């Protein structure tokens, strides 16, 4: 049909049966967001989820999820904060305070605060002290030392749990929100100066308790509190009196965050609404100012558990798993893509791997893996048809992890006979045997001690080698043969660096291994000679996906700023095509996409094609076609075949983009004619969430 001789790709399978967490497992899907903490210094955002996962987003790098720390069943993070510049701490209901190693991507240490579950934590304005509020009503002060934290003393014990804490910017006083009251402590003496009782009344009905979910201490001595009765209240900490009260919701107001300039703050409610309050002059050009509720935003369907206020944006997260970054238009100077609302829902890493030979998909969940065999069909059809299935997809395997730790990464070998996954403390390798329809699974025991924890696992194309990026920064090569395995080599990180490698790519001939960390460049190793071959010139933005093309051994790298580079490994330089692209620049719409490319693959018979995808589109880059400039239409639907050749050629450009499948979690070529795509409909995620607070839409 097409004169170019291209044959149609037909029979595309799509499996959507087994994404993270299914109902029948009784496990909730993507975990809701519990805390966010914004670091002004590095413009990074730490996000903790209800399953204990902590993610770090780099807001400067196009909101890329740079780092993540896997969760733990027993660790429910209740508080998250940055201190001492860029050190990240969390505290949770297990009563421990933890510090995260942002280089090696592991937990540095955990210190028990001995006060029962910790509900709140706040770093002092200077960053040298850490304050935690505990279940037993105690407020504990910790000194942050260069490599640990040191308990200093307790403040006066309160009657009930301390749910929220806030330092006065001068560091002399703190406000602590508890149940039914707010205490103001003098830091020096540790004694409560004031106790401000919060009204339990809620719309005239006296509730049992009024929980102060959040407090914020302003430099003028005002304490702002948000509570379960739907109130935002302003208190004078000097006199302990209520100054002003705003009733903003019929449900709990669960979070508050104040801008550094103290001219605006944001609160989140259980109804999913985020309210922006601003300090505005009473009349124009008067110096007297007052707090006014200016803008409501409804970007969430469920509770907004946490909010943060960056200098230019309001950030909110909650039970509905979305992280919403809403820029403040008045603070945005240039009207670029940063001025657009961001809603981050899906992880920026690959959770699915596939075995091309056996047509298997391995899905990674928090606590288990699922192996599915794709279905098949005998029918044929034309473009757009859905074919009847002759065989449906099979759920072959459900592999539960042992222990409370979440799975960090997983991989299935291309031949389908190996499955490897890792948690924080253990590495698992399984051998699969296929006998007709039966599968037998055998764990390879006696893993060497260095293979304790992996950040990324990859099998070579021929499934004979296993590459493991450990969290100590080393890259291990393991030889697999039959049912046994042999440690071949470990590429140690350059002396002095402990940066963990998060992304791996191996060439199809097995000669080259590319590894990328969170910030440094991409290293390419020669697997045959077991030495570092070259390092791709460092680029400012983190790598989101990479792959080595067969035959040419060109390394294709996608960065979080949506740039795509092609680097010839044998020549140790960027390819001509890559240079042309850089010279001409990408189409502005391409650069404005807001999800990173998470997977790159190649067509074995079409060396000029690169197939890549993000959460909302997949794209085939045809290097033989001219690049689009800003005037051409980027989202050019695949031209209809009945158009004349001339028209097709005129409208065709290198980027063929399709948005049929979204949200797209994974897409890969199984063989020359088959493409597999995994979609994760948002409705399914929402359906698995607890029902939101019902709100009447019209009247009563």
């Amino acid at each position, binding site marked *: 049909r097409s004169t170019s001789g291209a044959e149609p790709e037909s*029979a595309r399978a*799509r499996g959507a049966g087994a994404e993270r967490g299914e109902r029948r497992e009784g496990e909730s899907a993507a975990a809701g967001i519990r805390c966010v903490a914004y670091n002004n210094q590095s413009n990074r955002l730490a996000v903790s989820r209800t399953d204990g996962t902590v993610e770090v987003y780099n807001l400067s790098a196009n909101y890329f999820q740079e780092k993540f720390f896997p969760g733990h069943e027993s660790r429910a993070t209740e508080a998250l904060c940055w201190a001492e510049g860029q050190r990240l701490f969390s505290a949770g209901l297990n009563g421990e305070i933890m510090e995260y190693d942002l280089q090696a991507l592991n937990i540095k240490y955990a210190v028990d605060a001995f006060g029962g579950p910790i509900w709140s934590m706040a770093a002092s304005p200077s960053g040298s002290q850490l304050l935690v509020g505990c279940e037993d009503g105690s407020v504990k002060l910790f000194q942050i030392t260069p490599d640990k934290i040191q308990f200093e003393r307790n403040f006066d014990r309160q009657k009930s749990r301390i749910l929220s804490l806030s330092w006065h910017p001068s560091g002399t006083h703190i406000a602590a929100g508890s149940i039914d009251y707010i205490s103001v402590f003098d830091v020096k003496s540790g004694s409560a100066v004031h106790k401000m009782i919060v009204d339990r009344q809620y719309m005239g009905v006296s509730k049992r308790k009024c929980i102060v979910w959040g407090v914020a201490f302003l430099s003028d001595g005002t304490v702002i509190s948000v509570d379960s009765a739907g109130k935002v209240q302003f208190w004078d900490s000097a006199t302990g009196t209520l100054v002003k009260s705003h009733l903003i919701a019929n449900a709990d107001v669960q979070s508050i965050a104040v801008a550094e300039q103290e001219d605006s703050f944001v609160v989140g409610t259980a109804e999913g609404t985020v309210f922006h309050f601003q300090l505005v002059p009473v009349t124009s050009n008067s110096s007297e100012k007052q707090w006014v509720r200016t803008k409501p935003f409804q970007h969430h369907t469920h509770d907004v558990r946490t909010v943060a206020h960056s200098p230019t944006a309001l950030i909110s997260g909650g039970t509905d798993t979305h992280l919403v970054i809403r820029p403040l238009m008045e603070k945005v100077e240039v009207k670029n893509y940063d001025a657009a609302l961001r809603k981050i829902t899906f992880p920026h890493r690959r959770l699915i791997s596939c075995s091309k030979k056996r047509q298997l998909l391995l899905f990674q969940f928090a606590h288990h893996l699922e192996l599915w065999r794709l279905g098949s069909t005998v029918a044929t059809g034309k473009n757009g048809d*859905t074919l009847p*299935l002759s065989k449906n997809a099979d759920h072959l395997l459900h592999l539960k992890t042992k222990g409370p730790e979440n799975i960090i990464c997983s991989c299935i070998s291309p031949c389908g006979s190996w499955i490897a996954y890792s948690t924080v403390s253990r590495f698992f390798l399984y051998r699969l045997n296929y006998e007709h329809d039966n599968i037998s699974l055998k764990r390879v025991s006696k893993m060497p001690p260095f293979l304790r924890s992996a950040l990324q696992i990859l099998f070579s194309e021929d499934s004979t080698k296993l590459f493991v990026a450990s969290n100590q920064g080393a890259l291990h090569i393991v030889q697999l043969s039959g049912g046994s395995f042999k440690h071949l080599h470990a590429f140690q990180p350059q002396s002095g660096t402990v940066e963990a490698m998060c992304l791996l790519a191996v060439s199809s001939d097995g000669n080259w291994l590319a590894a990328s960390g969170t910030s440094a460049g991409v290293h390419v190793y020669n697997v045959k000679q077991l030495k570092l071959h070259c390092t791709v010139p460092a680029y400012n933005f983190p790598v989101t996906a990479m792959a080595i093309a067969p035959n040419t051994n060109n390394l294709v790298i996608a960065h979080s700023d949506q740039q795509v580079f092609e680097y010839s490994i044998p020549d140790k330089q960027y390819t001509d095509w890559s240079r042309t692209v850089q010279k001409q620049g990408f189409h502005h719409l391409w650069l404005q996409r807001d999800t990173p490319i998470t997977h790159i693959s190649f067509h074995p018979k079409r060396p000029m094609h690169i197939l890549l995808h993000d959460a909302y589109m997949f794209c085939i880059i045809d290097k033989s076609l001219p690049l689009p400039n800003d005037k051409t239409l980027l989202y050019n639907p695949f031209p209809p075949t009945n158009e004349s050749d001339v028209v097709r050629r005129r409208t065709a450009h290198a980027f063929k983009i399709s948005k049929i499948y979204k949200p797209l979690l994974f897409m890969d070529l199984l063989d020359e004619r088959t493409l597999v795509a995994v979609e994760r409909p948002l409705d399914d995620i929402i359906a698995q969430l607890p029902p939101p607070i019902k709100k009447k839409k019209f009247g009563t």
Partner: protein
Amino acid sequence: MAALEEEFTLSSIVLSAGPEGLLGVEQSDETDQFLVTDSGRTVILYKVSDHKPLGSWSVKQGQIITCPAVCNFQTREYIVVHDNKVLRIWNNEDVNLDKVFKATLSAEVYRILSVQGTEPLVLFKEGAVRGLEALLADPQQKIETVISDEEVIIWTKFFIVFRHPVLIFITEKHGNYFAYVQMFNSRILTKYTLLLGQDENSVIESFTASVDRKFISVMSLSSDGCIYETLIPIRPTDPEKNQSLVRSLLLKAVVSGNTQNGVALTALDQDHVAVLGSPLAASKECLSVWNIKFQTLQTSKELPQGTSGQLWYYGENLFMLHGKSLTVIPYKCEVSSLAGALGKLKHGQDPGTHVMPRFVNWETPQGCGLGFQNSEQSRRILRRRKIEVSLQPEVPPSKQLLSTIMEDSEKHIEVEVRKFLALKRTPDFHTVIGDTVTGLLERCKAEPSFYPRNCLMQLIQTHALSYSLCPDLMEIALIKKDVQLLQLCLQQFPDVPESVTCACLKIFLSIGDDSLQETDVSMESVFDCSNSVHDEKMEEQTEILQNGFNPEEDKCNNCDQELNKKPQDETKESTSCPVVPKRAALLNAILHSAYSETFLLPHLKDIPAQHITLFLKYLYFLYLKCSENATMTLPGIHSPTLNQIMDWICLLLDANVTVVVMMPEAKRLLINLYKLVKSQISVYSELNKIEVSFRELQKLNQEKNNRGLYSIEVLELF
């Protein structure tokens, strides 16, 4: 509502007020500062908001100030006269009055008068008046004697009327009072004898005056405790003749007649006066504010320590000597607008038209601002250098126009008005337009044959007029049954009262078709409905307008039977316009006008029943037209909206329901309207049902799109 606020005392220093009290309180060039001259040797400048003096100047021992200090607003200097003949001029920087500019005059000065926007005047005791500049050019110039022997000036005031200074002073001779009005543009001095009426032996205690466009209203408080008003025309008809003026009683017995202390009176604004004196019953002195229009006492305040019987009013402050100290009582009269509280104001404004302020306070002389500009241009006169520049009198075109109106023929006036409108708009444009219309209308009233229709139309179209400015205009148009002018007024005026709207409606409905043919009514709001080809189409469309509801299916059997009898008539009735296009245009103007239901309803009851029916038929017709298209609007530029139509239908029915129900010819109309409402109700209920079905369909559709957990699709990529 007028109100006196809390009083406060100005001076901490006790003023050396003699038995006659202070010499005077005068305004300074700063709004908040006042010059107080005591009866001794001192002038003090007070800042009222700060309650404190800013400066104080005294003449040498042995000299005595004889005339209160005033401010020359043009040069920002202060002027005082001591020892009757010595003029002193100084400014804020000067410390010692002995060292400042001095001019010794040849005659005794009664008072120096200064108002914003013009040069100060010097009034001599003999009645002569000189401008300050002219006087200073030659201080020793001969001053003529104007008033007769034994005649004494007892009161004077200086106004700006139409940017021209007018001086009035009142003299007394053997119990007879004379008023002199000096016009400075024409240099005419007019003398009037004030007749006291029956009450010949009363002595006038205090005067005050206010001015409007034609008269100076001099109010006087007599010793019998009553306030009288004397109107002195600004433009004397015959300056040569000695004229007599009769005073009329304005307020009776506001103060007791036999007070020992003096009484004082001052006009606060058009309707309010402040009176200082003892009320009849009480012995203590009181300051009271009276509304002279309604003759009511608005507020009063007791002044137990007694006063000097002097009262000054500047800005919003009343000044008096209370006991030994100068007391200030702020006075406020909140303006409450009935129009703001009631009624609907028109909001619709054509995007193209230039928005002009709708309301102008005609009474405040616009000269203030203009005069100030003049003074800015006319440099700061430094007295010490004795530079003299004469002010050039000009004759503005507006003046010319006003004089034309009074005498000339209709044609000529029209030409003049056109000329004036073609001119660039001056800041006093509104004033002139207002005056012109008033002038024209006055002439209309006086001469029944005079009706400068074109002129009036032009003036209305300037957007500078409103109903409240010239209520006579519509009244005259109503008498003349000038529907075109009425239509224009309805379109242009934002504040036509409901009674007038209704009067217009009556005329519009009752005027004969023949007389309508002759008029040239603006037809822009009327769409072309006389197309007979449309009629057939409309027959089908009558069903569409019912939103798919067939009237035959209606449960209202009785009415249907009746309707079915004459189906053809009905169609005809509902599809052809019941009024001629010109009348339709007029009625549309009514529909567009603003109203408040409460005020409109009583007037609507006065409309004859057959006219009500006609109007209703027209409205029903408009409604049918409206519902013909999807947007529910009428074609045409300025056509009535559906809401206006529906509101008026409801209004008419509300006002005249008993009448309409009894009328046989209105029966069909009512049935139609009833069916219309009924069908609308059922349409909405049907829509609700449809909505539910659609939601179900949507659900089904979603399920169809759901591709299930796993599917294989064909996708052509290469």
